[in-house]
Structure formats: structure tokens, C-alpha cells
């Protein structure tokens, strides 16, 4: 047997699953003592180019409360054509189509290498993808122009059959009717009045078709789509022109005022429009905003410029008068959208805050993207947006829609909850734990938007009683059933079945300890911490976290923007947390503990400690914090560069040195979503602060001479260094043990 790290990597590679413990304690009591719960990071759509989808539907356990999918862990009686469910032990007959089954003729789902398998549902019509652009027009002409171009560009990236729609807003909200000849039509709504779906339906004149269609929503939806949501191939030109003619919101903005921006209503209308035309069909609402909502439901700040948008300080003082109401508004929108399987993306490009704090749930509940940039006229936005439409080798979008994730467990273990871009479907079942962690109380979650990197944290509870030993060699199994709408329009089901050994903590503590996945556990705990930070008071979370004992990560986690709001606006915090909650393990690790590479003449590029001592004058540092890619030229290097040595043929090596981190950064930039902020700075540069704020302040103005070293750069901070932190931790650990 391979080492645990290899096993873990293999499992992750094959199933997209990483457990905090890879051998499970066999009783509740023992599991509780282990502090870090049995939990998993699960990436439902882990990219598996080698995995061909199967063109039939899965075989399900016939027990109504189980409905688990036939998998390699099931026992099969080839002669009787029976199989036993490994979750409920129900014996099931194979369906007629499996008549030819035998030991040598096994269906794919029984082969061990297909512990993750994907079925294609053949029934039902293929649904088109729906993209609804919701565009703010209250922005500078430059920004608007850039945005328009991006949008026009995106049209060419959409599959010809995809339906697109356009809603623009400013002081008013306009729903554009597409495909009109000779005259462009739009429905206009006041930005101050929220409308429920029914009202909206009437006002958009969408009632009659639906009334006639009666029961067959799908057949009738086609005609419905005709006015506001049209196939790209049909209205490509029309929409391009329409976008081209978009004007900045014409209503005058007087001195000292913010433009009136009806974001809340615009989103509400977008949600409502899809709700009444394409319920339960994959759809993306892509919202582009250039500032905060300033009127109507969902407003986060008044239009008086003299009143700044809420800060953490205001929130703590309970001085953010619009926040609660706005949050409630967006939450209800998010819930409506997720109920119907619709994604809400938010692309917020503004120098100031735009209200992401209030709107975060829209993206978080629906699996939508949240992108924050300074302007639409930046490559950050442009490339990020372009990357939304990235395609895989088959030419399909790397996105999936309207997914539901169902978790089935062996009897000894139950699921407590999930943390990630999902909402509960409130499906009670035998495998639902009473103990809730994150979004719990259910064994099914809705994930409206999925991409290959979307990762959920799932927390389990071992419920086996101490006095009910598990039979030797028994394994705990967990099955993840993800049904989703593929970007080709197909309905697909991906089933991942995984199992881990049970171990008696008293006798096999060693193996349990060895099976601990430190990285996964760190992220799982961090998610939990962030989840708590979102829902509870900050200091409490830190205190809670402090009681957990995870070394290095914890130090950085404490300092990270996920928990630390100092120096971050509420919007930024929301943004960082959003990303943290959906990215996979690797990326999450980077977010917590940025990666630092050093380039120098002393040798090939090497990773170095995220420590102030790594900052040396003759080095070029490349830091990747996930959100930022930063290249830092040490003092000497910067001087060389300034002197222009890189342009001299005899110093070509210096040129190469300078180029190396840039190339590496480009590589990172090209794969990362969302695009990180790219920073090129040097010693003493203002933007060097990004680096300085991340590194471990092992040398500060307080102690730099105490260490007596020449290397490194002192950091002007009062933050404790890792050393101090560790010392303190040790003390605590001892004292608490006592």
C-alpha cells in the first residue's frame, strides 16, 4: 500500500475528494475527541478528461429512503442478477437491460476505477443555456465603453443556441426586447419599486402564453423566450448594436450626489424574469455594476456623496442603516434564484465599495461568480470575464448549471452539513445528522453554478456507538450524487462513491494519526472559521479558532482577510470569503498562506519562507496570494534595473533574471480565475505593502537588531511574529493539557 500522501493524492485525482481523516474512528466518542471532525473537501466537477460519460441512466437502490446508485462497492450476485446496496443492504434486481451481466461482462459502474462515473440522462428536452446580462449604465464613459466591448465580445463566445437577454439600469431599469426590427424596444421599470414575479410577469406581458400552456412548462417556454431571451445566433447583430448604443444613464446627477442606481430592482427583475420564463433551467444572471445601489430596495447607501458608504466601523456601531434591509432584499433574491436553479454573478468594478457585503449571498447561494476590480477598463476584469467562457477540450463551457448534490452515507456515519456555494434543499433522510455544521439538516444541496474547481466542504459525524463495534474490515462509505445540467444542455449525473476504513482509536491510533490530512483539515477548519465569522461576532471566532491547534496555517489564517477585517472594507472581506469558500484545496491554501518564490543569481528559483527574512536586496520575489501576483525587486536589483543594466548585452543574464518571475507570473495569471491583481513593485515602492503585510514579521522595528542578522527587511508592525505566536501557543497547549 502506498503512503498516505500518495493515497490522498490519488483519491483527490480520481474522485475530487479529500478527507481530513482517511481512517475513521469507529465511534462517536472517539471521533469527538479528535477535535477535527471527519470531513471532506469535495469537488463535484473535478475535471476528468479521461472519464467518458455513460449514455444511460444509473441504477438505483429500490429502497425509497435510500435510492443509492449502483457502485463498485456493491456486492453483486451475477447469477441471480441481484445486487446488494452497500448503504442500506437492500437487495435489488438488475433492470432488464442488465440481463447480459456477468463477472466478465460488467457495466462500467461496477469497475473499481469508476468510483466516479458520469451518466447522461436521455430523457427530457435539451435546455438551452440562458445568459441574462444586467448592466449598470451609471459609470464613466470609458468604463461603459470597455464593458460594452467585453459584452459584445462575449456574444461571440456563446454557443449559437444559447439564449441571451439584456437588462440595463441606472435610475430606471430597462428590460430590452430583442430581435425587434426597425425599432428597439424595452420595458422600463422604476428603480424604486420592487415587483414580485407575478406583477413582473404581467407587466412584461408574459402571462398569456403561460396561461395557455398549462402543464407543459417546457414546451411553452420556448415561445416565452422570444421577446426578452433570444438565441444568440438570431439576434447577434441586433444585440451588438443595442449594446453599442447603450448610453450612460442620461438623468442628471447634481453636484455632491451619487448617480441613482437601481441595482436592487434590476436584479429583482432579472430574477423574476427568469423565474417566470425558465424555472429549473440553468441560467446565468451576469450583473455588471459600477457602484453601489443608491435607491430603491437593496440600496446600500444614499445618493448624498457626503455620506460615505458603510465601513466595518459603522457596522460594529450599528450605524449602517441600509445594510440589514438590503441584505434581506438580496437574500430573498438569492433564495428565489437558487430555488429555480439560476446563477447570479456579480462583476463589481469600482474604486469604492459597491455593496458586495449585502449582495454576497447572491453569488454565494447560487454558485455565481463574484469579481471585484477597480474598473471595467482593466485587464483584470476583461480577462476574468473572458475566462468565464473558457471551454474544455470538448468545446463545452467549463460550467454547469442547476446542480443538486446528494450525499449518501453508511449507517455509522451521517452528514452534518456543507460549507460552500450551495443552499439546502431541506431533504431529510436517514443519513442526516442532527448536529449541524454549516448548511446542515439536509442531505441534498442545490448548487446552481458549478465549475470544475468549485469545492464544497462537507462535514460528517460518526454516529456509531462505542459499544457497537464495527465488524473487522468494515468500511464506511459515502456516495456523492451530483445531478446537473451540462453546458451542452444535457442533464447529467455524476456519482462518486468512496469508502474509508474504520479504526478503533484505542488500538489503532497510530494509523488514524497517520491518515490525517493536514492540508485538508486546515482548509476545512478555515472554512468553518470563516463560516462562523460570517455568522458570528469576529472575536468569538478567533477565540474559537485559538482553541484549535493547527500550527502554521492558523497563524496566517488569523492574519488573513478571511477573519481579519482590519484594513479591509466590508466588500473586500465578502469578496475574499466568497472566493475562499468555493476554491479547491490548493487555491485555498495559497489564499491562507501565500506562496513566495525567490529569484536570484544564487541559483534557480526557489520557494522561500513567507517571512520578512526572505526579503533580501539581491532577490526578486514573486508572491502569489491568489488575489494578487506580486513581483518584488529587492533594493539592489531595483537599483540595477534603474541603471538599465538589463539593456546592456553584457548583462543579459540580468535581463533573464528580471524576466523569469514575469514569465512565471504570466503563467499563473493565465490559469487563475478570477484574474489576480498583478503588481510589479520594488523595494520601497508603495505597493510593496502588499508583500510586507503578508510575510511573517520575524523582524520588526522592535527586534531587528536583537537577532543580529543582516538579512531580511524589518516590518513596521505591532503584529506578533510567528515565533511569538508559537511560543504562546506552546504555553497554552501545556497549560490547557494540565
Amino acid at each position: 500500500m502506498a503512503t498516505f500522501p500518495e493515497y490522498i493524492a490519488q483519491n483527490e485525482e480520481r474522485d475530487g475528494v479529500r478527507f481530513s481523516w482517511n481512517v475513521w474512528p469507529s465511534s462517536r466518542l472517539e471521533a469527538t475527541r479528535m477535535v477535527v471532525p471527519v470531513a471532506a473537501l469535495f469537488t463535484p466537477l473535478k475535471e476528468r478528461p479521461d472519464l467518458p460519460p455513460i449514455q444511460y441512466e444509473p441504477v438505483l437502490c429500490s429502497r425509497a429512503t435510500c435510492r443509492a446508485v449502483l457502485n463498485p462497492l456493491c456486492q453483486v450476485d451475477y447469477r441471480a442478477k441481484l445486487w446488494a446496496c452497500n448503504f442500506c443492504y437492500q437487495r435489488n434486481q438488475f433492470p432488464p437491460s442488465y440481463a447480459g451481466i456477468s463477472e466478465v461482462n460488467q457495466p462500467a459502474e461496477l469497475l473499481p476505477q469508476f468510483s466516479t462515473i458520469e451518466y447522461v440522462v436521455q430523457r427530457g428536452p435539451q435546455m438551452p443555456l440562458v445568459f441574462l446580462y444586467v448592466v449598470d449604465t451609471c459609470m464613466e464613459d470609458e468604463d461603459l465603453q470597455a464593458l460594452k466591448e467585453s459584452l459584445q465580445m462575449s456574444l461571440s463566445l456563446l454557443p449559437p443556441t444559447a439564449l441571451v437577454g439584456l437588462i440595463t439600469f441606472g435610475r430606471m431599469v430597462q428590460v430590452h426586447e430583442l430581435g425587434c426590427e426597425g425599432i428597439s424596444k424595452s420595458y422600463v421599470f422604476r428603480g424604486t419599486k420592487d415587483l414580485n414575479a407575478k406583477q413582473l410577469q404581467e407587466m412584461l406581458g408574459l402571462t398569456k402564453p403561460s396561461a395557455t400552456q398549462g402543464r407543459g412548462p417546457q414546451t411553452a417556454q420556448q415561445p416565452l423566450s422570444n421577446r426578452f431571451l433570444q438565441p444568440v445566433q438570431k439576434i447577434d447583430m441586433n444585440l451588438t448594436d443595442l449594446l453599442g448604443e447603450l448610453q450612460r444613464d442620461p438623468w442628471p446627477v447634481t453636484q455632491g450626489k451619487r448617480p441613482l442606481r437601481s441595482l436592487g430592482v434590476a436584479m429583482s427583475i432579472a430574477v423574476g424574469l427568469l423565474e417566470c420564463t425558465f424555472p429549473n433551467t440553468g441560467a446565468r444572471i451576469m450583473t455588471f455594476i459600477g457602484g453601489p445601489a443608491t435607491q430603491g430596495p437593496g440600496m446600500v447607501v444614499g445618493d448624498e456623496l457626503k455620506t460615505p458608504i458603510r465601513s466595518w466601523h459603522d457596522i460594529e456601531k450599528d450605524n449602517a442603516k441600509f445594510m440589514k434591509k438590503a441584505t434581506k432584499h438580496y437574500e430573498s433574491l438569492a433564495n428565489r434564484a437558487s430555488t429555480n436553479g439560476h446563477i447570479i454573478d456579480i462583476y463589481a468594478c469600482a474604486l469604492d465599495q459597491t455593496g458586495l457585503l449585502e449582495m454576497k449571498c447572491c453569488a454565494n447561494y447560487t454558485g455565481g461568480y463574484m469579481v471585484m476590480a477597480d474598473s471595467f477598463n482593466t485587464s483584470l476584469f476583461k480577462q476574468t470575464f473572458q475566462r468565464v467562457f473558457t471551454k474544455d477540450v470538448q468545446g463545452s463551457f467549463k460550467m454547469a448549471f442547476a446542480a443538486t448534490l446528494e450525499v449518501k452515507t453508511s449507517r455509522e456515519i451521517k452528514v452534518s452539513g456543507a460549507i460552500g456555494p450551495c443552499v439546502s434543499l431541506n431533504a431529510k433522510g436517514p443519513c442526516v445528522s442532527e448536529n449541524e455544521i454549516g448548511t446542515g439538516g439536509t442531505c441534498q444541496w442545490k448548487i446552481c453554478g458549478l465549475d470544475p474547481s468549485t469545492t464544497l466542504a462537507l462535514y460528517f459525524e460518526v454516529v456509531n456507538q462505542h459499544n457497537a463495534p464495527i465488524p473487522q474490515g468494515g468500511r464506511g462509505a459515502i456516495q456523492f450524487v451530483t445531478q446537473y445540467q451540462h453546458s451542452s444542455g444535457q442533464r447529467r449525473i455524476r456519482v462518486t462513491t468512496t469508502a474509508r476504513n474504520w479504526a478503533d482509536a484505542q488500538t489503532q491510533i497510530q494509523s488514524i494519526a497517520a491518515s490525517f490530512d493536514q492540508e485538508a483539515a486546515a482548509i476545512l477548519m478555515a472554512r468553518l472559521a470563516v463560516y462562523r465569522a460570517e455568522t458570528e461576532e469576529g472575536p468569538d471566532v478567533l477565540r474559537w479558532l485559538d482553541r484549535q491547534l493547527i500550527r502554521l496555517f492558523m497563524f496566517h489564517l488569523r492574519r488573513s482577510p478571511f477573519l481579519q477585517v482590519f484594513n479591509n472594507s466590508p466588500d473586500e472581506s465578502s469578496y475574499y470569503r466568497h472566493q475562499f469558500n468555493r476554491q479547491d484545496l490548493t487555491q485555498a491554501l495559497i489564499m491562507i498562506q501565500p506562496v513566495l518564490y525567490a529569484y536570484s543569481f544564487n541559483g534557480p528559483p526557489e520557494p522561500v519562507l513567507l517571512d520578512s527574512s526572505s526579503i533580501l536586496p539581491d532577490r526578486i520575489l514573486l508572491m502569489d496570494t491568489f488575489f494578487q501576483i506580486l513581483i518584488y525587486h529587492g533594493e539592489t536589483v531595483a537599483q540595477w534595473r534603474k541603471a538599465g543594466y538589463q539593456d546592456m548585452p553584457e548583462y543579459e543574464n540580468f535581463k533573464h533574471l528580471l524576466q523569469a518571475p514575469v514569465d512565471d507570473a504570466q503563467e499563473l495569471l493565465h490559469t487563475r480565475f478570477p484574474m489576480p491583481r498583478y503588481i510589479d513593485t520594488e523595494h520601497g515602492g508603495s505597493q510593496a505593502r502588499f508583500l510586507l503585510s503578508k510575510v511573517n514579521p520575524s523582524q520588526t522595528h522592535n527586534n531587528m537588531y536583537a537577532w543580529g542578522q543582516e538579512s531580511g527587511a524589518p516590518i513596521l508592525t505591532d503584529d506578533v511574529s510567528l515565533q511569538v505566536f508559537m511560543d504562546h501557543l506552546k504555553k497554552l497547549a501545556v497549560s490547557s493539557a494540565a
Partner: protein
Amino acid sequence: MNVNQHTPMASPYGQPQPGYSQPGYAPLDGGYPAPYAPYNGPASAYQPGAPPQGPARGPPASGPPPVSAPQPYNQYSHSQGDMQNGPPTMTQAPPRPAASQPYNPGAMNLSGPHPSYPQHYGPPSTIQQVTNQMTGMQIASGPPTPAGPGYAPPHSSQPPVSTAYSAAPPPSYTQAIPPVSSAPTQPPPPSGPATSQQYYGGPPPSSQQPFNSSLPPTSQQQFTSSAPPPPSSQQTFPPTSYSGPVPPPSQAPAPPVSQSQQSFPPTQPPFSSAPPPVSQPAFLSGPPPPVQGSFPPRAPPPSSHQYPGPMPPQQQPPLSQPSPYHSGPPPPRAQMPPTSMPQSNHLPPGPQGPPGPPGPLQQPPPQPGMQGGYPPQQNGAFGQVRGPQPGYAGPYPGQPNYGAPAPAPAPAPPAQKRLDPDAIPSPQASDMPAVQKSRHRIDPDAIPSPIQVIEDDKAKSTEPFTTGVRGQAPPLVTTNFQVKDQGNASPRFIRCTAYNMPCTADMAKQSQVPLAAVIKPLATLPPDETPPYVVDHGEGGPIRCNRCKAYMCPYMQFIEGGRRFQCGFCSCVTEVPPHYFQHLDHTGKRVDCYDRPELSLGSYEFLATVDYCKNNKLPQPPAFVFLIDVSYNAVKSGMVSIVCQELKTLLDYLPRENPEMDSVVRVGFVTYNKVLHFYNVKSSLAQPQMLVVSDVSDMFVPLLDGFLVNVNESRLVIESLLDQIPEMFADTRETETVFGPVIQAGLEALKAADCAGKLFVFHTSLPIAEAPGKLKNREDKKLIGTDKEKSLFQPQVGFYNNLAKECVAQGCCVDLFLFPNQYVDVATLGVVPVSTGGSVYKYTYFQAQSDQERFLNDLRRDIQKPVGFDAVMRVRTSTGIRATDFYGSFFMSNTTDVELAGLDCDKAITVEFKHDDKLSEETGALMQCAMLYTSCSGQRRLRIHNMAVNCCSQLADLYRNCETDTIINFFSKYAFRGILNNPTKAVRDTLVNQCAQILACYRKNCASPSSAGQLILPECMKLLPVYLNCVLKSDVLLPGADVSLDDRAYLRQLISCMDVAETHVFFYPRLLPLMKLESGSLPVAVRDSEERLSKGGVYLLETGLHLFLWVGASAQQELLLNIFGTQSFSQIDPSMTSLPVLDNPFSQRLREIIDSFRAQRSRYMKLMVVKQEDRAELIFRHFLVEDKSASGGASYVDFLCHMHKEIRQLLS
């Protein structure tokens, strides 16, 4: 003559007259201009009243006034004059000549008429005085005649005359009177006929001339025929026209031979005899004045006119008539008076009539003496007089000319109706005694004839009307005349019910005559009159009185060498700002008086400063927003495509002040059904953008930039839009509409653009879609006639009232075009248009093919017509009276300011005045209507109209200077508003009561004692009963079974902003016989009664809203061929809406006439061809207002009897 006349004239008429009479004549002959000049003189003359003055003034004044009326009077006056005053007669005599030759004084003199006049009129004068007693009619006639000769001319100006009379002593009266009568006589002949024609055809002036030529034909001919061969001619004519009567009278006298004549003479005689004595004394004493007053009043003139008409002919030998007149002049006149008398009013109860006659008859003998004869007539005229009148009838027969076709009853009627009928007809008699002995037997020809009055007035109004004279009544609205502004507003801007206001509230209350003015601030003037000048007083704004804030006007008296001025309204003294200082001349006038419109004219405009603007900001140019219903019905009826098509061209004709420049008015477009579609037509767009607002519960404007655009800049986009709208909605299945949000949308658009403007809403159906202002169908025929009926005229919901308020605040005027196929609740939908100074147009069952023309013409006119926005009107009056009530399309948030979101050139506002103190006869009563508005070029201006009227302490003066048309305008608006709060029946009763009180008061205080059975009407008001009856039986107050609630509400609102001319023709439609058409003149109208229609004829009837062509079943083939291009009656297609274009003079002329009618009215009239005995004839008959109506409305005769009964009850 002149002298005599002058003196008399002057005194009688007041200043004006004198001038008129003397100058008038001379001028007349010479030319109109002269007359005008005289006017000024006249004014002065009037004041002096003294003979001497007269002469001086006379010349000027006489010129104009004399014109037509004067002459007729002259004739009468002559008679009177002769009778009464030696001198007067003289004067009179001259007048007559004038009469005969309206303008030529010389002619007048020459004409032997004098003698004749004397007879007739001579008595009249006395009679007049007496007559007053007798009845307005007689008096009227009487006075006129006497004064006539000399005065006649002046009389035309009469109004003043009357006033003058009151003021002036007897002599003046006589004179005055004469003028009147003379005037009438003279004018009539020439003008009379002419006038009638003119009416139809062209302007007054022309008419006069035409009269001579053309007119004569009709009236003259008749007269002539009748006159000379009284019997024969009369027979034929008599029946038809009343005018005939007049002439007849004259003829009659002479003709005594003829039956009719005989009859007349008798009547007159009686009058004359009895009255004479009375009258004279009366004159001398206080009484006379009243009488005179009555005489002088127009009534006489008119009557005289009619007569005159005939008369002139007589005088004017050239014409056929002349001879008759000459020969019989005297006699005729004698008769005339009688006739006039009777006409006036006396409709003695039938029974009395007969008896009366005898008396009269006896009197008749006296009549010869005219004077004597008249008086009696007046008094008893009605009853008895009529007896004699029959004779008149004869004369009328002469009139028949008018209604030639009318049953020639002349002969027969005469006998029966003798009494007053005839007398009545004689318009001359100011007092119209309409005596009806036995109602059943009353001859329609014997009661006052509107046609006669109209024709008489036309005949006498041959000269421009100058406004310089205080209290001078203008010609009737049916008369074409030119106006010269000399210090008072033109009657086109302001018309008053009374030009002689009672001095005290008691008097006003006693008389019950409403004191009101109908103001049409932006009235369009004919091309030959100068529009108001714009005055700029610089940065300080217009100069105003410190206390009452009245604007600088001719009534401000400069004192202290010009350093201060005293306000004519409140007497407060205000410093003259240095930049406005000017020295005074020796008369106390500013040296620059004639250089400054505000010091010398009645109407002018001030440029307003920023202080007069909303938010102290100069206004933006206004905008027009077109809101088009695109629901199923609208599209299917073709309305949408028609509107869109038309707008493409129409947008080039938006109102502008400088024809050379493009209009600055911006336009915007909205279509709607259940939701609203706004359009962005910004010039930079390649194609229009449609913005749908479906949230109608809380309306807003979805766009700012690009909604309101300049037509020229966005032409391509607009055209593209207008092309597409019909296509876009061609397949719509939406049947529900909203309405409230539509107006809100327009309002919000104007608010957003911060400008005033106008909304044109094209709407089809009851707004039942869920939205503010949603309505339900509440038409319930069962409520009609109950106390709850009033609720049907009130808006269903309060929403629109509030909306209207908002619209007014923004200066958003709403014009509503309705295309209903069923009940749409006009009462509610019309609230906003009516409150914002807008109009409602209704095209029930609109069909593109047949209604397109009417709709498009209305639309074109509505868009192009001059209009002002965001207006506030205030009427200031001199101390003693106060404007208390306002009627029209506007909104008032307090009791004094009339707020008009928009006001166009066709809208009139009726203002009622009440006393709050005493008025003085010296200063008269002043009113100043100031309207602050934004012109269509976005300029803020103040339009000022000043008006001064006389004040009187004698009721007779009041009754002599009233204008019935204006009174009817007021009554109708008063009643139509009354039904909002009172049961319809109560409103009708109120009207009848008030009318009865007015007439009873006259009878009691102004008419000479006579038998109670005699109906005596003031000359000025002799048509009050007939017109009032028309009001009472209008669809609004007395609906027929087939009249929808919407129609009633529509009419109700429509009337509320009509001016006098419109109400006149609306209530008493114009009915033209078309048997013979001549270029340049119109045929004389006939009375609105089926009796007047000849089976063999073709008639044109217009009401201002409808236009009918009635074809008699046995119309001549040639006629049909000329008109329709077919000889067969049965082949005429009754569904045609325009006549075939045929290349024959008749067809051309007829189409010209129709076109000219349409051009005169603010709304396009669709032509309906009605074939006799066709089903459509029912509709047509509805407009024959003298007949019983299908809905139960009384016939004229019946109503007159009823009125008489009421009066008698009041008197007893």
C-alpha cells in the same frame, strides 16, 4: 339734418351716437373711413349730448354707427322726429336718406321718406317713449324711426345711444331713437339683405356693399314686391320672412290697400295713438328715457333694419323697392312701427290680441301719425297690437323674402296674427310685444324672429366698430364687422351682457339681468385688424397701480404734471417711475399717449419679467406630447394609422410666432394600451427606441434625453417611428386601456423637461385596465330625470381632479380626442382637459373612411392654432363690482385667479360680476382682464384687455343696452354647470324663472302701461325667449331617448368654453336656403322650423358642430344636378360626406360656402346629406329648434306663451 340729428343723436346715444349720426351719414356716403373718424367724435358727442355737440361729434361718430342701422332708424326717426320734435324730424329726415342710401346723408335727406317716416316714426319717437311703455318693441321701433333719420347712422352705434338716451333728455331721445330706427331702416335695405348674405358669405363691410347690390335682391326684392304691390308680394313673402313684416309695415301703411297693410296700419295706429301721448309725456318726464332706452337699443335698429332693408329700397328708387317705399313710405313706416312694436315682444295673450286689434285699429288711424300709433302698439301691442299686426304679418310677408318658401300665409296670418306678430317682426321696435291671443292661433311669423334681428344688425353694421366709446354695444356676433381699437377691448375679446350696468346692487337684483362678460383673451383677429402690440416696460416690469395692481391702461389718469397717476380702478395714486415719465398736454393727456399702446388701446401685451415666471426662471419653450391609444379598437378603426400618417406632415406646422422661423415647440410620442410605450427619437439614433412602462400604478417617465425633441433635428427618426407604430400594433389583441397613467406620463415628461406644454391624447375606450383612474361603466338610463342624474355628470372618481390640479401646476394642457364605440364616461375623462384649458373632441363610431376628414381637420387646427401656456388670468374691476364667478375650461385654486394650463384662441371664459358697492354713472364700470402666459415661443407675457361700460340708474337704460347672445352664453354655461349639483329640472326652472323675472321687471318698470295680456319684450331681449328655449331643450338639459350620457357630458363641457358666436349658432343653428346662390353673398337664412322648409328646396344647416344638407323630396332636378350630379332624388347617396366636385357655378359656390362655414368654426363640421323623409331626417329635425322637439321640448310659440304666462304671474 346733421345738426338736428347730431344734437339728438348725441344726446340720445351718448357721445358716440352724435358722432355717428352726423358724421356717419356724411361719411357713410363718403366712405367708412369718415365714419370712423367720427367715432371719436361721437364719443365726445355723446357725452355732451347737447345738439351742438352733436353736430361736431356727429360727423365723426355718425359715420360709423349710422352705417346700416342708423339709416333704418332714420326713417323711423323721421317719422318720430317729425312727430315729436320739429327739429328732430328734420334730423330724422336726413337720416332716412341715409337709410335709403345708408351712407349718403344727402340721399337721405332727399328721399321723401321723411314725410313718410314722420308718420310712422314720428309717432314712434313719441311712441318710443311711449312705446317703451307699450313694449320694448314698439318703443324700439318708434324711437329708432324718429331718431332714425338723423340718428340712424349713429344708432348703429346704438348702444351708446341707449345710454345716451337715458342720460339725455327727451330731445336726445327722439334723436337718438330716430337714429336707431333710421339706422335700421337704412341699413336693412341695403345691408339687410346684404347682411344676411354677408353673414353667410363674407365680412360685414363687404356685405354692406353687397347689400346694395346683392342684398337688395333678396330682401329688397321681397320688399319691393311686397311693398309696392303690397298685397301680392306680401302674400308671397309675408309668410316666409318676418322682415317682410317690417317692410310690409311700411308698405302696409302705404298699401293700406293690401290686406296685410291694412291690418298693420290698424295695429300701429292704435299704438301710435294711445302711446303717443303717453310716450311723449314719458319722454319728457322720466319715463321717456326708459322708453327711449328701449328704443334706442338695438332692437329697434334691427327691426328698423329689416324694415329699412325694405325701406331703403324704397328710398333708393333704383331698387324696385324704392318706389314702394317712396310711395308708401310714410304709410309703411307707420305700419312699420307697429310691426316693430309687436315684434318686440308683445305676444299678448291670444285673446287679448283680438281685442287689442280693435283698439289698435282705432289707433291705427292715429298711426298714420305714426307716433301715436306706435306707442300704443308697444304697450298693448302684443295683445291688441297684434291684431293689427296681422297687418304686419302682411308686412312680414314682405320679409318672407327670407323664408320665401315659408307659407305665404301673409295674408291669412296677418289677420290672425295681426296683433303683434307683425309688430314683433318689426325688429325696429325695440320692445317686441309678442302677443299671442290664442296660442294656437299664433302665427310664427308674428313673433320675434332671430333671422330678422340678425339681418337688421348686419344691415346697420356697415362701418368699422370703434371701441372708443364707453358702453357702446357692438354689432351682433352674426354680423361681420371690423373693429378699431380706441381704448376698449374689441368685442372679439370681450363681450358683455350689459353695456350699461345698474349702479346699484338693488337695481341689478331687481332686473335679474346677469352681469357678465365673455372673455376670449387670445381670440384670433381678422387679417385687417392689428394684433395686440407688445409693450416692454423694461427690467422693472409693467407699470402697475400700487394698490390694486392693475396694469397701466388708458383709464389711468396722470396728474401732477405727469409725475403720478391715479388708478381708474381703485383711485390710488402711484408715482410714475422716472423712465416712464412724460409731460402732459393741455388736456391732461400724456404727450406720448398715442405712441404707447397701453395708454391708447384696449388690448395690448406686456413683456413679463422674470418676476412673473415660475421659480423666477424664464420659461422653456413649451412641448407637445402625442399620446396614442394602440389598443385593438384604435388600430382597427384606422385611427392609429391616420394619426401617425398625419403627424408626419403636421409636425411642420407647430405653432410659432414668426412664420419665418421654425417652431421651438418640442414634441414627444407615447403609445399605450394597458401599458405605455415611450419613444426615444433622439436625432443621434439610427432608429427610434421604444420604452415600455408597464408599471402603470405609479407612473414615471422612463427617459429624459430624446423624448422631447426638435422636429427638424429628429425628423428621420420621427418619421421612422410614425411609419412603424401602425405596423407594430397591427396585430394587437389588447382591448383594455388605461387613461390616468397616460396623462400622468405626459405630465411627468413635462415636469422632467421643466416646461409647459400640451398633451394630445387619442383615446378609444373606457379605461378598465387596472391602474389609477380606472373606471367602470355607470351609464344608467334609469337615472335620467331623477335627482341622481346629476351624479352622472360628475366625475366617477376623484383621481382626475387631483391629476388636473397637478397638470395645472405644471402648465400641462390636455386635449383629448375620443373615438368611442360605447360608453367611455366623458364626464370623467373630460375632467382633466376641461380643468387645464384643453378641448375634448369626440368621434363616436369612428370610421376611417367617413370620419377621417373631420378628425384630421380638427387635429390640424388644434395643433396649429395659437395657444398660450401656463396662464393665470385675473379680472380686475373698478370699485363697486367684483368678478365673482367664472365659467370655462380652467382651474381655480382661489377665488380670483383663473389658472389655465393652456389657452387657445378658441377658448372663452365667462365672468360674472356682482355688486359690492355702488357704481357711479360718471365713471362707469371698468374691467381689466390681465392674462399672464407663456407664448408658444416660450416668452412670458401679459395680455391686457380693458373694457369700460356705462352705469345707469334707470332700468330702461339697462334694458336698452343688453346683448341677448351674451346673456344666452352666460345662461347656458350657468345652467350646464348647475346640473352638476342640481336636478336638471330644477335648473331648467331656474332659467325660466330668471328669464321671466327679467322680462317682468322690464314690463313693470320700463314698458308703458298696457293690458296685462300683452307680452312686451325689450327690444334688446326680444329673442331671449326663443334662444332660452333652445338652451332649455338642448340635449344637455332635455335629453332625447337616443342621446347618450357621453354626448350630454361632451356637450356640457364643450359649451363651457364657447364664445358668444359659437353658443349662438349652436343653440340657434343657421339654416340657409340654397335655391339660389350668388357669389359674394349668402342667401338669407330662414328660421329653424320645418315650416320654413320647402319640399322643392335644398337647405344647408350648420350648428358649429354639425353641417346638414337637407334635400327636399321634390327638389328641382336642375338643382340636384348642380349639386350632386344626378337628377334623381333617389340616387343621392345619403352617406356622402363631401359633395362631388362639379364644374358648375352652383356647385362651386355651394362648396365655397361650406368651406367658409368650416373655416369659421373652431371644429370641422362633417357634412351630412339628409334626404327628406329619410331616417336621418330625425337627426336633422332635432336642430329645427323652433319646432317641438322629439324629446318634449316646447316649440317657440308654445314657449313664448309659457313665458308670457310666467311673466303675468309675476306681474300679478
